[in-house]
């Protein structure tokens, strides 16, 4: 019985992570072919031991070598990293004051404020990103509003630029930044700030010396929760970004669906996963340290 219970998560990981990962890895080592599925070789067990040996002998690292030969790919990885870092920073700038305000709000308001943060999840992510097209386009609500107020005389080009991508990412991932920061700030003992003031801090000093260091675990968790999915983000750059918005998620999509080059697309995906492993491990360590500190 105990083995069964412990086994369930392992079976889950095996079936839903390791097996698909193995398939993608295998495709990335294959060659493109005009066939269904569009790669070769395929494993044919009827050929016996010799057939399997033949199958493995045809696998090679050709696609990975190809990724290094065309500068599109490493530029896309770097550009994705840059966009993810900047977007995470912008989300932190927007999210921290909101989380701080929520944690400082009267206690009876907090559930309602929390609800407002979570509410957007109740509609489809895709629809919400499409809605931003309506807001940001040349004839969109934002331009109409700015023209009406007289702040601008010509409509701004926001849609299909990196600015629109940043707006989309900050908007979409804001709750992932707010919630962990709010959780740490809300738990903070209010008498700590009084103690800091009592010992000679101004309010602003108390914020820098007490509130911010104590919110650090929440800030770190929030940053990882935004950074990790943003790095591989595909929908937002393809809907809101322009032709010059280079992100690896978009490249992957084009390789897979437009070029029908499954092996190269798989190689791109494997490299992306390897890049993500570093922040994911760091995130896990941060969570572990926090748990230890609380004990």
């Amino acid at each position, binding site marked *: 019985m105990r083995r069964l219970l412990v086994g369930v998560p392992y079976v889950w990981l095996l079936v839903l992570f390791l097996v698909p990962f193995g398939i993608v890895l295998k495709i990335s080592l294959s060659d493109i072919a005009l066939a269904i599925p569009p790669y070769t070789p395929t494993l044919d067990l009827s050929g016996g031991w010799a057939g399997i040996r033949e199958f493995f002998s045809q696998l090679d690292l050709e696609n990975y070598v190809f990724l290094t030969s065309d500068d599109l790919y490493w530029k896309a990885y770097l550009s994705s990293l840059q966009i993810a870092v900047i977007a995470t920073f912008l989300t932190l700038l927007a999210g921290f004051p909101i989380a701080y305000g929520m944690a400082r709000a009267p206690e009876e308001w907090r559930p309602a404020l929390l609800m407002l943060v979570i509410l957007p999840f109740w509609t489809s992510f895709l629809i919400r990103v499409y809605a931003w097209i309506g807001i940001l386009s040349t004839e969109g609500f934002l331009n109409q509003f700015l023209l009406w107020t007289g702040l601008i005389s010509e409509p701004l080009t926001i849609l299909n630029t990196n600015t629109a991508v940043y707006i989309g990412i900050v908007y979409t991932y804001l709750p992932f930044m707010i919630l962990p920061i709010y959780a740490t700030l809300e738990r903070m*003992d209010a*008498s*700590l700030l*009084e*103690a*800091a*003031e*009592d*010992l*000679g*801090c*101004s309010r602003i*000093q108390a914020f820098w*010396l*007490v509130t911010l*260091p*104590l919110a*650090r675990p929440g800030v770190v968790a929030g940053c990882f929760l935004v950074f990790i999915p943003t790095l591989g983000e595909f929908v937002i750059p393809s809907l809101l970004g322009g032709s010059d918005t280079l992100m690896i998620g978009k490249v992957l999509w084009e390789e897979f669906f437009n070029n029908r080059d499954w092996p190269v697309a798989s190689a791109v995906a494997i490299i992306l996963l390897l890049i993500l492993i570093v922040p994911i491990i760091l995130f896990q360590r941060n969570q572990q340290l926090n748990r230890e*500190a609380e*004990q």
Partner: protein
Amino acid sequence: MAVSGKDDVFAPWKDATAEPLIKINGVTKRFGDFTAIDNISLEIYPQEFFALLGPSGCGKTTLMRMLAGFETPTSGVISIDGQDMSTVPPNKRAVNMMFQSYALFPHLSVWENIAFGLRRDGLDKEKIAARVEEMLKLVQLGKFAKRKPHQISGGQRQRVALARSLAKAPKLLLLDEPLGALDKKLRQETQFELMDIQEKTGTTFVIVTHDQEEAMTVASRVAVMDHGQLIQVETPEVIYEQPNSVYVADFIGDVNLIEGSVSGLDSGAELAWAEGRDPLIGQPGASLSKGQSASFAIRPEKIAISAEEPQDRRNRVQGKILDIGYLGNLSTYHVELPDGPIIKCEVGNRSRIERRDFTWEDEVWLSWSDTAGLVLPR
């Protein structure tokens, strides 16, 4: 109790020339409709160990928070060392506070917690280090300097909090239920440690507590509060032996209260308490008039218990033993009088193998001297 270096007893409140450190003048604090502090005036002198004592919600914490600067009085003036405090924020007061939760910064080590206030003053590094070491020595925590607050025990945390609040050498130290989170034995030890430290540093301490034993042990003077008012401000002895009201007598220690009316004021105060009984005789605890309804207050340890009727005392009543509580160092007898009231009486168990004369249902006499009890107006 703090005693000055001279031979006479430390009692600046009796000295007309002494200058108080804190002057609270007609201070009222309202939160909406609720009056937390109701027109209080109080003077606290340098080097006093002053206790604010009362049940929760009596306003003692609000009064302390006003001294620290976290609350401002609705009306009235608080001045510390001659300076009006109404516009001085907490971080600009020569007052430090030890919080009930200790409020130690969890991300800083013991050393850094103690240095926190000193760093805000912009002292140079050597001076800060020297002062922190001095504080660590004072509270005997030198070995734990590098630990974080979650790595030390509750008693150690309490001492770090004390060291941190004393590090800046404040004129006034406020202690909010400082021993509330400690277990009884540690609490008693720490009470004496606190008194030691107060004497060594010569700082004025104001302690807020709901624990009357704690207030009595540590304080030079105790202010008993109720509903935002000061009921009595006196030394622990006077508070215990000369309470000015039934409230104070009942709040501090154990007391028997017998209700009646004042029947005579010739020799002490006489209280008629039951039909056909001799009146009880005691000291008047406040100004009384004849016929006024009053309570007779007598402490259990001041009552003698005997099998025979004592002839030499005017205050004597007969009753039946209802309950006996054996507490080790003393025994408590609950004696029911024929007219209903139950009187508690304490007898010390002086020798180890005592022959106990009384048992349940025994008829006994209770007696006490004319000066043992107080007659207090109701």
